[in-house]
């Protein structure tokens, strides 16, 4: 029983990390502030906060999915429910760090909103509800999404360093060529998934 749940947990986590990577497979949570992180440390921090919030709120989200399942107007109730869970975790994190860990608070404060109200997060919850995941799968999927998001930010940072030393045409410098680069990575991952459009 426990082993089975652990298996579900890890499989869904790996799927969310590699095959259905939030950024590369579904382009979720993609914005300029994420693409143009100053340092890899900032990227890892941003992804880490997202991982924490996703994992913590997914525990509540699993409950929301369980309650909402089969209720009338489910699609209406879902989003507010998710928003409630995420806002609870967000406020808890904010206040706790502000009171107890001021140093940590000063570090994470600029990245907290970006990582919290992020399409990657809510997208992970929606996918877990569309696939009617159980508790362990939901938590695992959220965790995998967060880790995959962090890895993606890291990869994109080094892609920028690589592209900085090639004579990219002036119109393509910065965001456009980076998008083409991500496009090819996403193409490679799509070859692994095979035919199956992201919902």
């Amino acid at each position, binding site marked *: 029983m426990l082993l089975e749940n652990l298996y579900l947990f890890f499989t869904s986590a790996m799927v969310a990390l590699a095959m259905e990577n939030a950024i590369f497979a579904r382009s979720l949570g993609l914005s300029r502030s994420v693409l143009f992180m100053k340092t890899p440390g900032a990227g890892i921090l941003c992804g880490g906060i997202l991982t924490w919030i996703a994992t913590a709120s997914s525990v509540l989200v699993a409950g929301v999915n369980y309650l909402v399942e089969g209720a009338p107007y489910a699609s209406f109730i879902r989003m507010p429910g998710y928003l409630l869970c995420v806002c609870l975790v967000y406020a808890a994190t904010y206040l706790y760090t502000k009171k107890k860990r001021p140093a940590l608070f000063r570090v994470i404060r600029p990245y907290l909103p970006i990582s919290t109200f992020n399409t990657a997060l809510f997208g992970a919850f929606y996918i877990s509800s569309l696939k009617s995941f159980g508790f362990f799968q939901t938590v695992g999927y959220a965790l995998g999404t967060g880790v995959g998001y962090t890895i993606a930010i890291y990869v994109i940072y080094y892609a920028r*360093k690589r592209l*900085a*030393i*090639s*004579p990219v045409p002036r119109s393509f410098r910065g965001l456009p060529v980076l998008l083409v680069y991500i496009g090819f990575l996403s193409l490679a991952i799509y070859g692994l998934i095979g035919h199956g459009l992201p919902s």
Partner: protein
Amino acid sequence: MAMFRKGVLLAQHKEPAFSKPIVRFVNPQTDRMTIEREPPANPARAGVSDIVEIAQAAGVTDERDGKPLYKKLLRARERAVAVLVDAVDDEPYVSSRIAPLLQCREEVLGGLALCKQVAQTTNISFVVYQSITDQKLGLPRTIGGMPVVRLRGAYPAPAQSAKMKMREEKGRRLIVGTGALIHLYRAVWRAKRQSTTFITVAGSCVANPMNLEVSIGLSVDQVLERCGLSAEPTRVVCGGSMTGIAVLDRDATCVTHTTRAILAFRENKKDALFSCIGCGRCEQVCPAGLNPMYIHRFVENSYYANLRLFDAHMCVECGTCSYICPSRLTVAASVAKAKEYALCHFIQPGEETDELDG
């Protein structure tokens, strides 16, 4: 088997200049100059101070590094354990040290004997480059009973291993070029002031390449006329073919003490100026184990942030990366620029270890 080897074996176009007899092409006035100080009674056992003073008076200069010879002799008298005659001509077309060593042998030996008296050591050896494939006259094992150390391997492996030899006991060895020895001998025995130097005149559009003993101060144009030009060269080089300096004004450029060769080439500009195809050959041949391709790209995009990783200060400026580059890029120039940047930004003075001192 180029695929398993690191480094590159250059085709040494030393012939025909190498085996031809050395021709004197001198200015009579300067050639007649002597030193005021009367020669010692018996030059064979002249005193150390005499030799040093004569060398100073005659203005004998080492053609390896333009230093006056008497300073080297003074340093050698204090603390020298070995004397090394540098006849390493590893660059193609250049044979201006090895040819005098083989052709005016007794003069070299006489000069060497004087150095031996100064340095008070018996540890004497000649250093030559063995991988000269196209020479007609063979390299002897010993010259005057003294061993001839042969450096083998790809260019610039000789420079590398010579550095290995020279670095340990830094400064405690006397390294002289053959030209300096010959001039020292002449100064002591015939009281002649050094007014000439040995150079090689060769290249793809020189009519009859040869080794010359020319007066210092003659212009490059005169020397080239002496040997004749078969075609109008697109680049005239003063110095070695790999590390020399291109001459812009042939009239204004003169032969100096340290000029080793004057080369005239004619190249077709068609196969030039492609963009880098990233073949990575420059990294396979770099003797210092550097990564010239990335250094070149960083420098071209003026993105110096990552250069710290690439140890550009270890470059030995041999020019192999540019030589091998199939796109004819000026990689070596970029690496030199990066080396300057690294030396003034990343490296504390005294940390760089690749300097070759005599």
